[in-house]
């Protein structure tokens, strides 16, 4: 299963990339995927898929694009 991870804002510098395709060996949840991306410990983030939030227990599907962003509060 292949999923794309897009990282936003300063999380890019912690993760070391802004967009990457990952190949997962089998079924996985959003939380398991996030554990593989270092965006800083205990940092509040919002994770979305198709413009909607996903929870750590949500199952991923082949071709998913997950977006990890800081909790912006606006300019």
């Amino acid at each position, binding site marked *: 299963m292949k999923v794309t991870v*897009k990282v*936003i*804002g*300063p999380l*890019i*510098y*912690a993760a070391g990339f*802004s967009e990457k395709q990952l190949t997962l060996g089998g079924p996985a949840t959003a939380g398991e995927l996030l554990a593989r991306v270092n965006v*800083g410990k205990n*940092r*509040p983030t*919002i994770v*979305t898929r*198709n*413009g*909607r*939030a996903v929870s750590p227990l949500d199952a991923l599907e082949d071709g998913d694009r997950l*977006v990890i*962003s*800081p*909790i*912006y*509060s*606006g*300019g």
Partner: protein
Amino acid sequence: MLGWTGHILRVNLTTRTHEKESFSEEFATTWVGGRGFAAKILFDELAPGIDPLGPENKLIVALGPISGIPAPNTGKAVVAAKSPLTGFYGDGNLGTRVTEHLRKAGYDALIVEGKAARPTMLYIEDDRVEFLPADEVWGQGTFATNDWIYGKYGKGVGVLNIGQGGENLVRYAVIRSMEGRSGGRPGMGAVMGSKLLKAIVVKGTKPIPQAHPATMKAMGTADLKMVHKMDQDSGWSRQGTTGVLAWCNEVAGLPVQNFRKTSHAESWKIDGERLDAARVATYGCPTCTMRCGIAVLDKEGHESELDYENVGLLGSNLNIFELDQVGSLNYLCDDYGLDTMSAGCTLSFYADAIEHGATAGDFTFGDAERAKQLLGLAARREGTLGNLLADGSLRMARAFGHGSEAYAMQVKGLEVAAYNCKFIPGMALAFGVSPIGAHHREAWIITFEINNTTRDSYGPEKAAKVIELQRIRGGMFESIVACRFPWIELGWSLETYPKYFNLVTGLDWTLDDMWALADRVYALIKLHYIREFPNATRKDDYPPAVWFDPGNADTEGPIADKYLEADKYDQLLQHYYDGRGYDDRGIPTRALLETLGLSREADDAARYATLT
């Protein structure tokens, strides 16, 4: 009374006189400062129906009890007047050294009345006030004017100035300071220009009265370092607010092509990562240790200081994805002294109106060179087109007709900030009920909306969140006066602000006292509105009609076929009114006004409009 200097400087440009006035402790604790002071002074002193560009309008520069005190992000000032763009109370804030200097000169606010006989620079140094000629820089941009002033007085003085946009009464002209800071989106620069007031220069040398200065100094100094550390640890300043662009693009919230689309494949070319890479300098406001102004070189080689709103509305919203060209448009707005958001929305509306046959013209989306020319026409009010552009999108739409008002991206005349709310109902509500028109400053709930609720919901939880954020952002921060960024972006504790307030004033306020202040200020601004528009209805609190149009829904992507549903939006609006204690028209009830201590103001408003 400590914390406040207890004085307001009133200047009359017609008579070239000034007066140092005292205010009571009751006034101070009822209105606190900033927006609170400005809204109250203008309510009491301006008769409804006056020409906002006439000498009877008054320009207010208002500060708060923590203004100018060394502590995180206390270098802001509120500028306010009756707006030539919206026709009622308008304001904005900007970072400026005027904040510290005006307080040290012994004033918590400045009221500018009348109209000068010739271009004038107002010079204030402690108790001395001078009316100096400014003919030499009349017709000059803000950068040259700023240099001229620094050449005379040095870089340490406080400066507010305008460019050609303000001089020529562009309805969305702003007031500028420190070369990169702008404030007063609803035309505060035009009000200054209407008075032939090119600049205000302030130098103050007195101590600011404080109840506990040593404790405040120790806490403020430590907190400045802590905010800086939090910023460095998080990396927030690497992209500042421009990090939002990539996120808005991913969640279908980016303005593209006059808000017709919500994302674009080329948006990465102008996102925060590209800005960080192209950065040549970073700028910020006084007492800021998390600076957000990212300067890049524009197409002509100028430094251009960008944030998300600039890039969103002068870039993606115009289908311009060349970073240096976006920088050029931003530089021109800054030099002319134009609000980048209203300028971007007005240009995008013009291109859209041409595409839809509402008018004839030669401007198309993506044409950066023509956009630069159009900004010049607007700033100079050159020809019929320049005058149309200078009046903003709503007036243009009314001139064009053909149903174009539906896609003039504004609320109450003020253009919307860079969030495309086709399918973000709570943020659409935040724009609709912002007290001065579609400003993002009052409540920004997109991340809450997507993270903590379902996007489809029009439920009371979203209305409650808008009210909560209005109290914090548009109420407390705008009145005490401080920048909200340490709190919203770094998680700096809100409890810090009543602590600062109490240390300087000697009072014992809690956040609940701040919320009561906020509700009072919001209700008073509504009374400003109904004095000017007695037939106000709930439709005035609706966002742009195009967001409700099924034909405007995205055809692909995360929100394909989605649009705001009018009946559900109306329910959401009712949840907001219920939460606020407003009637079905969105007007505070008399009972609420009395609870807020606004009985006298209610009596006055009732002379013009019906209160329930």
